[in-house]
């Protein structure tokens, strides 16, 4: 188990008085309660016995048809038999790692990577290698070097895990050129790619990028999807699209883990998609989240000190901010919690537990614009306090910041100590 200190800190972020920019929650308050009630009532009236029963391990065909609709919206057309329904996207990551990785096997992911994948990779004792990212996502030339290095020592990674669109946590999107190169590299080195795409349809600006799955045709790419961000995380439904031999192994693992995904919530998905309004709901979410992203970016420009930098994501739920190297954001979180505001410290996104110490992940989907502005203001304030304190400790302020000499205002200016 990693970093129980950070886990204890994160537990406090759930207090009601805390403005939490730490979670990865969609805003489920926007889902119309009446339509939820109507759908569940219909299920109770028409399919009570079936909805309360076990279901097939791979999931219902009707659920898979809904999944095919969602994948078609991003230009993907797998066979229905290429799909397995999982208990959320998280179980998909777990099952794939369990199926493919033996202790010590190399696995490659982005740096930073999805914090929720870190404990999964660690619990199956994968030898995790992280490839750095920039504004265009994973640096594929660095990936190529790593693959070559591993090949020279006779090792081949079990898979390359990537969140190519609006990456969690960095907020960056893999460019089309790099997508093509990544898929090529996977073929050349005969390595599977695990494409995790929970937010692909939540794009606020810019051009849609082809998924790795569509570029590759599904030979080397295992695709993970989820209804969590486009419908509800509470229903716990995700999926994997994979070639049949891999799918069979995943199905065996799933049988051992939980027999089947909730039938009740699969019925709910079926009802919901039957109404034919799912695209509209996503469009509504896109409008809401775009405004929230903009509010957060504006607040960052206003309240974060000039020493901080951050990504401006074209979609998804997160942005990633990086502070001067002497600030450790795990410690900063303790200070921020005293001001009742929370974020995810960057270390959580690195397997070594020490990199990313000066960065933080900020979520903009789960809070309204006023909360976002206030939350960012409070975080900006604690950062500024820490920077000023550091400068007074090191004496940098005396060197770096000569006293402001305003244009002669026509009188004597008495310097006052700052309080």
């Amino acid at each position, binding site marked *: 188990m990693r970093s129980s200190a950070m886990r*204890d800190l994160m*537990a406090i972020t759930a207090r009601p008085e805390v403005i939490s920019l730490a979670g990865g929650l969609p805003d489920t308050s926007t889902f119309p309660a009446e339509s939820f009630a109507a759908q569940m009532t219909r299920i109770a009236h028409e399919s009570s016995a079936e909805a309360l029963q076990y279901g097939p391990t791979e999931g219902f065909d009707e659920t898979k048809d809904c999944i095919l609709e969602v994948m078609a919206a991003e230009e993907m057309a797998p066979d229905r038999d290429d799909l397995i329904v999982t208990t959320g996207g998280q179980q998909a990551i777990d099952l794939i790692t369990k199926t493919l990785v033996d202790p010590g096997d190399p696995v490659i992911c982005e740096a930073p990577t999805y914090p929720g994948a870190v404990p999964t990779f660690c619990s199956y004792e994968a030898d995790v290698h992280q490839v750095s990212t920039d504004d265009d996502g994973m640096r594929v030339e660095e990936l190529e070097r790593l693959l070559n290095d591993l090949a020279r020592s006779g090792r081949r990674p079990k898979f390359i895990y990537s969140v190519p669109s609006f990456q969690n946590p960095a907020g960056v999107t893999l460019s089309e050129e790099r997508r093509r190169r990544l898929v090529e590299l996977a073929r050349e080195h005969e390595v599977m790619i695990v494409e995790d795409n929970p937010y692909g349809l939540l794009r606020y600006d810019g051009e849609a990028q082809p998924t790795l799955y569509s570029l590759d045709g599904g030979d080397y790419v295992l695709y993970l999807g989820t209804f969590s961000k486009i419908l509800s995380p509470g229903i716990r439904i995700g999926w994997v699209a994979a070639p049949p031999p891999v799918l069979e192994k995943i199905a065996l693992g799933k049988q051992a883990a939980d027999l089947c995904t909730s039938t009740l919530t699969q019925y709910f998905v079926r009802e919901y998609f039957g109404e034919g309004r799912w695209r509209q709901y996503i469009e509504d979410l896109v409008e809401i989240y775009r405004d929230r992203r903009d509010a957060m970016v504006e607040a960052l420009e206003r309240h974060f000190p000039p020493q901080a930098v951050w990504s401006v994501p074209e979609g998804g739920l997160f942005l990633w901010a990086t502070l001067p190297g002497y*600030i450790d954001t795990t410690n900063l979180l*303790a200070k921020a919690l005293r001001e009742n505001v929370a974020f995810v410290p960057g270390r959580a996104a690195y397997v070594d537990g020490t990199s990313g110490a000066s960065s933080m992940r900020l979520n903009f989907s789960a809070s309204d614009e006023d909360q976002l502005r206030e939350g960012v203001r409070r975080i900006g304030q604690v950062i500024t306090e820490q920077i*000023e*304190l*550091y400068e*007074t400790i090191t004496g940098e302020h005396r060197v770096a910041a000569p006293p402001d000499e305003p244009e002669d205002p026509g009188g004597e200016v008495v310097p006052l100590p700052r309080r």
Partner: protein
Amino acid sequence: MRVAVLKGGSSLEREVSLRSAARVEDALGSLGHEAVGIDAGPDLVARLRDERPDVVFIALHGPGGEDGTVQELLEILDLPYTGPGVASCALCMDKVAAKHEMRAAGIPTPDWAAFNATAFRELGAGDTLAEIEAGLGFPLVVKPASQGSSLGVEFASSRDQVPEALLAAFSYDDRVLLERYARGRELAVSVLDGEPLPIVEAIPRDGDFFNFEARYEIGRTDYICPAELPDEETERIRELAARTYEALGCSGFARVDLMLGEEGPQVLEANAIPGLTDTSLFPMAAEAAGVDFSRLVEKIVESARLRPQAAAGSGR
């Protein structure tokens, strides 16, 4: 007996507290008492007035529950409670005040210098760092003055690491101390009703003495109880722990942390409300003395019930 178990609260050690309390509540139940768990929040006083417990078991850690605040409220409500009183809790939580008290009582504790943030901001304390570093030597330890756990505790092994270590410690408290690193074996002596229990020794598994994170994690530190020490040394250390307990005005229980190096044992701090989880050192020491967890809880509750209300401690 009706026993209110105070737990949770808003300190950074909330999770540890919840784990301690769950275990205490189980033990109280098995002893035939009625345990009423109360998460310490804005309704704490109202809840206590409603529940009217015979005794209050304080299973809170960190500022608020361990610094005399909750104890003060219980004095006002005239409810008997477990562990040290108001003044003693305040003293134990403030590492700097505790070190002054220990020095005055002739208890060895490593040299230190303490500052608040204002000293750096407004009084140029940064200019004294060279002297402090020369006096304490490297590596030195930087700690927040008032955190119970290892959060914010940093080692600096050279000059250039000191500012970052200070900044880390200042994230947890407005006052921090720089302390001479006491090299040696890490020991903890729990004291129950003034009687020192067997000594626990903590041994970091990968030999990484400079990583406090490691000590916070299960499986990265081995604990040995009773610590393997010559009888004479054991007695000397236990006696030192008992003197520390007394010097800091503790009652009920406390845990004294020491380092045993070439210069003999040095006391780092006393914890007024040590953890009671299934991996905590206090229950481990009690177990080694033949006191199982239920019996330990029983003793603590008895001690609280029989203790005269320490109105003097609250200054009223």
